[in-house]
């Protein structure tokens, strides 16, 4: 781990060098009053002041629509084809947040426990993440309650922290990070130990702890809390699709006569069709059962099975929800409620 300093106004030049040498660079770009990760061609389009983007950056490794394989039928024969290697592009994710970088850990463990999902791995291995530590936070952020933090470097290849107007701390964490710094070696100087990163970080008091949640969820399956919390939930997929750690997908067929593709696309446990049997029987018939599944999966099942947390506390689901299902508020009430 190397601690370097770069002049704040040289960051643009460094980014320009990265853009020239990497096929795809994703960065938050302002669109109306909200920001989204977009592929940028020049260094000046980047939006540095919005807290986070609406959607997470998981699409870089787990795209919303993706071909699994192609098939071709000739007479009685059927031929199957893999996707070409050059669909997977070297990518740098610029100015993500610590909670975005952490989000790839649960995704990677879902796609690699037991069977290895090569489509995901090919994309993820080609990604380098440059996160900017958070110097501010908003009402929906709760990363400190789920083991993260404004300066958490987990999952990042480089973490950049704005110390003050002139100086910016650049922590190089992996060899992918090293390569990116090497592109503009002359812009960096070694950082003295006196540079205090913690001082520059936002202060986000923790609302609950993982243990409280985990313990209460274990006995909460039949609790009335699910119905009470999910009464206003409309059953759309916004929370799942903006979430950095939701990996559930649907498999569909794009058929054109004798040829076509099997396609994977995002799906959400909030939809009733997610678990509906052909006979019409649905193990999760109401919105309360689906809200329970969303919380239990992220805060109880995943920690138990893959010992990784299914949530990074980025607060995107609360910001995107049409009826303000604030997950931090719900989790706080679960954590504080003592079950009989």
């Amino acid at each position, binding site marked *: 781990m190397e601690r370097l300093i770069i002049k704040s106004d040289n960051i643009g030049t460094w980014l320009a060098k990265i853009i020239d040498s990497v096929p795809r660079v994703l960065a938050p770009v302002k669109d109306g009053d909200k920001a989204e990760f977009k592929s940028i061609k020049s260094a000046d389009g980047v939006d540095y002041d919005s807290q986070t983007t609406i959607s997470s950056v998981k699409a870089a490794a787990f795209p919303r629509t993706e071909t699994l394989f192609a098939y071709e*039928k000739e007479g009685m024969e059927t031929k199957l084809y893999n996707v070409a290697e050059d669909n997977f592009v070297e990518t740098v994710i610029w100015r993500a947040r610590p909670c975005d970088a952490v989000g790839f850990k649960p995704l990677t463990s879902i*796609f690699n426990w037991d069977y290895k999902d090569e489509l995901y791995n*090919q994309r993820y291995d080609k990604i380098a993440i440059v996160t900017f530590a958070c110097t501010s936070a908003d009402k929906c952020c709760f990363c400190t309650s789920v083991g993260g933090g404004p300066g958490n470097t987990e999952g990042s290849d480089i973490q950049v922290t704005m110390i003050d107007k002139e100086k910016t701390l650049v922590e190089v964490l992996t060899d992918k990070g090293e390569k990116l710094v090497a592109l503009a070696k002359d812009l960096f100087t070694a950082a003295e130990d006196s540079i205090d990163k913690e001082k520059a970080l936002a202060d986000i008091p923790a609302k609950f702890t993982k243990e409280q949640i985990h313990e209460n969820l274990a006995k909460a399956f039949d609790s009335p809390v699910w119905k009470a919390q999910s009464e206003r939930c409309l059953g759309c997929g916004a929370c799942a699709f903006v979430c950095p750690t939701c990996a559930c*997908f649907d498999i569909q067929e794009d058929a054109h006569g004798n040829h*076509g593709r099997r396609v994977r696309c995002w*799906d959400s446990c909030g939809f009733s069709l997610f678990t509906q049997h052909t006979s019409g029987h649905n193990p999760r018939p109401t919105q309360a059962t689906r809200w329970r599944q969303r919380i239990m999966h992220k805060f109880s*099942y995943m920690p138990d099975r893959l010992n990784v947390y299914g949530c990074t506390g980025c607060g995107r689901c609360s910001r995107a929800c049409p009826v303000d299902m604030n997950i931090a508020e719900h989790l706080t009430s679960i954590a504080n409620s003592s079950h009989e």
Partner: protein
Amino acid sequence: MSRNIYMPYIMVVDKVIDEAPGVKTLRLRFENEEEGNAFEFKAGNFAEYSAFGEGECTFCIASAPTRKGYVECTFRKAGRVTSGLDRLEEGMTMGFRAPLGNAFPIEEWKGKNLVFVAGGIALPPMRAVIDNVLDRRDEFGDVTIVYGAKTVNDLVYKDELKEWDERPDVTLVQTVDPGGETPDWKGEVGFVPSVLEKADPKSDNTVAIVCGPPIMIKFTFPVLEKLGFKDENTFTTLENRMKCGIGKCGRCNVGPMFVCKDGPVFSKVQLNALPPEF
């Protein structure tokens, strides 16, 4: 790129058997010989069957692993994919992703008596186990099969039922729902749970395997308890909506257990530990 875990084997349809109205059995052979020879599975495994152009759907492998050279699947024409499978004729190709899920613990049942309880087109997953047991008949105690369907015409594997009926070492009890019998029907008339109670198989050193629609399972378990069957000796399979079949797409879980990875075969002990979400 290494093995694409979503890519199925290509299978050739060798034989199409009409089992009952809307229910067909396909006998499949691997188009690629080596893949066929290298392919192994256990009774209880399921598979994802592809009708290219329609999609994939989930049901059991209906033939026993001891029967080499082919696999069979039985399905009812219900939706888009099963209609696609229904249109297949001999010689045509389809996709097959297997083996998936866990299997019946047959090795643990050596020396025990076996009671198979099946309803409707839940006989296919049972037949995989029954044929497997019958091919190693002497390793097990006595075998009782209780099988029911709505009407006489809805009974699947009619020729095999005849075969089991004639075997001295198998007691076969067939039944049809009240009103489903035909004048020359010699079997029982009544729902499977009541017929099972009447057959009254002894429960010590006996394993019960139950497969059928949720309603049948709901009424069969109490009967088994009444007959003295212990929970650890009772097995069943769960049916959930599935897409990937390999623990990735996140939809088939019942509580913390994935039906596609930790199931579909569950003992009653495991079922009792699961939340009522199936």
